[in-house]
């Protein structure tokens, strides 16, 4: 009985207690700085995304300048979006959420600001080195060694700051979002070391296995847990509804902690890697459905009777469509790992469709929702324009769906063609051209979403100078 009460407490922290403190004790300088820089990169790297999408339609476009070829812009797009935009925005939100769930100030704003500066130095270093072709040759781990070391230092600074905040916490019970934040910090450390340092001591298939462990878990144990930390915090918070089940969130978290790390080698199914290892990764990939469904069911049940709130609440729109994309992308993943499906979709354009649904559709939607919620509160003002925020949602949603769905169709079609060796390879390239046109058009829509989002946030921040709207509307809306 007593246990139940305390658990109930943990579930309610984001709705009640934390809100009381949120407007008074927090400085949020670090959160602000991370957030602003992440949105700037979102915009810049969005332009690069359009350039590489255009290269599929116009192959010689900007093609005679080595620094602007596909082979150099693609890693810049991937690294820029993953680390410049998404991870930085996620970190901003952690600097915002964690102190509130602990009921204390961030351990050190100074350390936080230093982390933000270092992070920006890393991203700028990445831009220079990737354009110059200083590429280590490992997917997601392209950056040269000195930058890898800097990332580790920045991550330790980030982790120490949050862990010390948690150690000083006022509330004994730790809400789900705190587990996911801590899990992200711990697992990322080891996943990153594996992908960027352990690989230095291995070659061939052994190295590839370490590389895929990192690539897969960069999504599975970095962006997934930090994304879920955000979703678990903001879904109850922005809808003012307590989380449906604490037990279910425990099942989701601890099964994720155990299952995810086994699945890296599913990037090599049918490839030159031991068959038994392929089978193990397939089994564990299918088991991923457990943590995914536990989280998704929890979110849907939380919203029961509250769906009408989506009409006027842009953050909630992003959050709940992000949950749907999370469910879809995590249903695709286990299915891809099955040998029969893998034989069709692996290495095709289906895969970017899948990857973009995870990183853009699910986790960027969570981050955007968090940004829309956080910015008016930390700058003590109101959002510049709700209508513009709504526009950003629909542009992202329609552009995103256009991107995902056409690439799935195209990828499946391509895979079937590849499996018929009577069709020359070049014909399978030519067949995909309409798909790539649609992708570019969808890209423009998504970029429109980025512009609307970035402008809205920056206008809110600029507009906040001088007009100190009190914390009132923020607290009321919460």
């Amino acid at each position, binding site marked *: 009985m007593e246990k139940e009460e305390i658990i109930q407490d943990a579930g309610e922290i984001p709705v009640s207690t934390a809100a009381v403190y949120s407007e008074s004790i927090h400085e949020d300088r670090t959160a602000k700085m991370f957030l602003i820089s992440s949105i700037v990169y979102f915009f810049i790297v969005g332009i690069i995304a359009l350039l590489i999408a255009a*290269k599929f339609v116009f192959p010689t476009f900007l093609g005679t300048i080595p620094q602007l070829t*596909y082979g150099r812009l693609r890693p810049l797009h991937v690294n820029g979006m993953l680390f410049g935009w998404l991870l930085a925005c996620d970190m901003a939100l952690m600097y915002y959420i964690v102190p509130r769930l602990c009921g204390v100030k961030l351990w050190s704003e100074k350390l936080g600001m230093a982390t933000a500066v270092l992070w920006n130095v890393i991203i700028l270093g990445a831009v220079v080195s990737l354009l110059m072709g200083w590429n280590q040759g490992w997917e997601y781990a392209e950056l040269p060694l000195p930058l890898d070391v800097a990332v580790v230092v920045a991550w330790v600074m980030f982790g120490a700051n949050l862990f010390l905040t948690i150690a000083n916490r006022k509330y004994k019970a730790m809400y789900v979002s705190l587990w996911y934040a801590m899990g992200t910090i711990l697992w990322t450390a080891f996943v990153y070391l594996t992908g960027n340092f352990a690989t230095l001591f291995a070659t061939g298939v052994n*190295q590839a*296995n370490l590389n895929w462990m990192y690539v897969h878990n960069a999504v599975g144990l970095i962006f997934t847990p930090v994304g879920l930390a955000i979703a678990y915090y903001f879904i109850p918070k922005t809808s003012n509804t307590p989380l449906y089940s604490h037990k279910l969130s425990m099942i989701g978290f601890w099964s994720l902690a155990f299952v995810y790390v086994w699945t*890296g080698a599913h990037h090599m199914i049918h490839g030159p890697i*031991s068959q038994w290892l392929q089978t193990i990764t397939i089994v564990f990939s299918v088991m991923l459905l457990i943590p995914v469904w536990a989280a998704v069911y929890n979110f849907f049940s939380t919203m029961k009777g509250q769906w009408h709130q989506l009409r006027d609440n842009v953050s909630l729109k992003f959050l709940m469509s992000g949950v749907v994309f999370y469910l879809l992308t995590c249903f695709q993943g286990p299915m891809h790992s099955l040998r029969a499906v893998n034989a069709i979709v692996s290495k095709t354009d289906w895969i970017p469709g899948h990857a973009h649904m995870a990183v853009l559709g699910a986790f960027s939607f969570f981050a955007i929702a968090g940004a829309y919620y956080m910015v008016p509160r930390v700058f003590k003002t109101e959002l510049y324009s709700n209508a513009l925020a709504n526009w950003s949602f629909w542009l992202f949603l329609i552009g995103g769906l256009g991107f995902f769905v056409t690439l799935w169709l195209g990828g499946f079609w391509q895979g079937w063609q590849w499996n018929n060796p009577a069709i020359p390879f070049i014909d399978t390239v030519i067949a995909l051209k309409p798909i790539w046109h649609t992708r570019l058009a969808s890209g423009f829509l998504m970029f429109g979403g980025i512009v609307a989002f970035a402008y809205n946030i920056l206008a809110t921040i600029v507009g906040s100078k001088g007009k100190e709207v009190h914390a009132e509307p923020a607290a009321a809306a919460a």
Partner: protein
Amino acid sequence: MLQKADYNAAFFVAAALILFFIGGLLTTVVPPLLDQSWTKPFENNDPANGPTGKLKPLNEQQLQGRAIYVREGCWYCHTQQTRTLLADTKRSGWRGVDAPISTPDEFVYDNPHLFGTKRTGPDLSRVGGKYNEQWHMAHFRNPADLVPGSIMPPFPWIANDPKEFAALVAYMQTLGRSKNWRPDNDYEK
């Protein structure tokens, strides 16, 4: 059992790391210890055991070529693995001879590995020896001239640099050649 982790951060950290390390160690450290083919270079002299041949490390020029392949990001669009799929062995094949599937022991010296995840262009795991230098020269100048419909961009700065061009082609001619899988040398002699 894990409810203690709701209140005790140290217990939480221990539990999260232990669960992570079970799978982490079993899937990264253990497999190369169990499967020797990950670290033992390919060598076979008995035709009864499949294609014969021996994996040799790359020479200096070939390594330079490989570095160019990495620098230009060729591996974002070209995979290097003939998978255990019938269609892959046909597509990697040459003039009616099916290519053998790629095995871990053919890649022991690869650093960085270049297996790739996306096939925007064709797989290159068995491309060595198929096209001569002139073909590659024309192809790097403008791929669509030789393969109408190709979306590979031109690489004039490689085609116009004799040293880089020679190195890159030298590297590509090694791909998939450790296994003697087809009648010798279509153009070399």
